[in-house]
């Protein structure tokens, strides 16, 4: 078993004009090490950072990682993926005996990016897709949303309810810059930028950093009396091309299957107490809930309307406010999800604390234009 023995974060804010990317990493890392009660220069065997170069504005971001994590001349690497992939990497390193204590870091300095649309476009296939038309690549999500709504017979209100739930949940989270007391009418009145997708259904960008300290069974018990265990972790890629993609988040289905098998969970809808899922586009939350098998294919929207996924519902989802409330944290998205799950499991979530929670799921997608994602199951 692998445990989380320390967490730290910095943010989350819409901009961070006072701190460089190095300094937000330092702030978050220092808090995580203090939380775990370790000295990174002495105790940590491996450092993993999750970053994509073009989000950062460097050709090789890995260069700029070690100092602020306390990782100078120590095993340190970059995983070009979401934070949860980093958790998987640390998990494997600990399981293979390469590390007893491993640190995972991920951050977003989205406010440094001046042309976000072009950055996403830069990830699109240059030969077959990138230069068609002039629109913002959000249209790719809109196409997927269109098909998903058609297949699941969803109304626009069904999707709008996700925004209402998450932005209101975020009001109880002091680190959620996009919290708002919106109603379904507000969302429905928000302009349709990419039919059928509305402005409010797109998560705006945010800055922040999350650092986790993971440890092997033995070491974790030495460090803390109440570790949070990584019960299972899974990551999966479906395909790259839109011609072969399922348009129904199969990547999450497969990643969840892998994570649940590892965690020994047979009936996720019953066994999972709460979840933090990727909602960088509102419809994605519905899609991800379905593929995480937390609700039946055609039930998700009905349950959402009935309040099943509310913070006082049977299976609270995105109590933190999700990306719609906290913001799009790029590769740190999974970090914010995992952080919320750990805080809830430890009982440290403040006014949004859920009662009697033992198993939580964090899930993240690799954002446009990909069909990859990861899932982690945490428990106490």
């Amino acid at each position, binding site marked *: 078993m692998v445990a989380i023995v320390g967490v730290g974060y910095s943010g989350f804010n819409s901009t961070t*004009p*006072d701190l460089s990317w190095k*300094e937000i990493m*330092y*702030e978050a890392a220092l808090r995580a090490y203090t939380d775990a009660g370790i000295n990174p220069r002495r105790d940590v065997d491996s450092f993993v950072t999750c970053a994509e170069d*073009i989000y950062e*504005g460097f*050709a090789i971001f890995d260069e700029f990682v070690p100092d602020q994590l306390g990782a100078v001349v120590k095993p340190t690497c970059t995983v070009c993926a979401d934070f949860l992939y980093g958790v998987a990497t640390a998990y494997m390193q600990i399981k293979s005996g390469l590390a007893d204590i491993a640190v995972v870091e991920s951050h977003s300095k989205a406010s440094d990016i*001046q*042309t976000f*649309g*072009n950055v996403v*476009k830069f990830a699109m296939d*240059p*030969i*077959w*897709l990138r*230069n*068609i*038309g*002039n*629109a*913002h*690549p*959000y*249209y*790719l999500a*809109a*196409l*997927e*949303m*269109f*098909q998903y709504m*058609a297949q699941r017979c969803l109304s626009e209100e069904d999707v709008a309810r996700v925004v209402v739930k998450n932005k209101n949940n975020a009001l109880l989270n002091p680190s959620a810059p996009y919290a708002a007391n919106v109603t379904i009418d507000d969302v429905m009145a928000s*302009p*349709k*930028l*990419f*039919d*059928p*997708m509305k402005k409010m259904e797109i998560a705006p960008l945010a800055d922040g950093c999350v650092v986790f300290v993971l440890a092997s069974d033995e070491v974790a018990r030495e460090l803390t009396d109440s570790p949070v265990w990584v019960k299972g972790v899974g990551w999966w890629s479906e*395909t790259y*091309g*839109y*011609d*072969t993609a399922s*348009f129904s988040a199969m990547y999450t289905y497969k990643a969840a299957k892998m994570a649940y098998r590892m965690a020994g969970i047979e009936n996720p809808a019953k066994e999972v107490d709460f979840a933090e899922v990727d909602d960088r586009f509102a419809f994605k939350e519905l899609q991800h809930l379905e593929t995480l098998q937390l609700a039946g294919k055609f039930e998700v929207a009905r349950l959402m309307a009935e309040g099943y996924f509310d913070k006082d519902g049977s299976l609270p989802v995105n109590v933190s406010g999700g990306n719609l409330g906290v913001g799009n944290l790029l590769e740190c998205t999974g970090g914010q999800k995992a952080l919320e799950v750990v805080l809830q499991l430890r009982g440290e979530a403040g006014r949004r604390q859920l009662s009697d929670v033992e198993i939580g799921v964090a899930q993240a997608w690799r954002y446009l234009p990909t069909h990859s994602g990861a899932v982690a199951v945490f428990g106490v």
Partner: protein
Amino acid sequence: MIEKIVNPKELRHWDGKIELYWVYTSGKAGDEFFKKLKEEDKFLAAKCKKCGKVYFPPRIYCEKDFSETEFVEVSGEGCVRAFTVARLDAYEKPLDNPEIYALIDIDGTDGCLIHLLGEVEPENVEVGMKVKPVLKPKDEREGRITDILYFKPL
């Protein structure tokens, strides 16, 4: 941190860019496809020799079983599976003319293409609508996906 700057005017930003010119070769499958399109107005797909899946856009391998593929000719026509009207450009500024993007299932293949729709009003687009590609005049073609201007209703 023990001390921090308190005067926001002392905080600095540094502007810069990642600016390069990239030249992407279309590759083996792409080269075949675009040359055929440019010279002969014809469309190619690729069929897996093992499982029979027909890829569009074509590729030289089957991504599921890693077998080789063979090129097959298709009409290039297809049906709209999903569409959206995009109103913002890449800088999040309103587009003067909203663009209709569609996911088009190409006839005779298991694949699809994302491209623009033209010669049709947004309110008249329907799922399942048959569309066909409109190509640039032959002498203006460059062997790129933008040689297809848009798809229009059949």
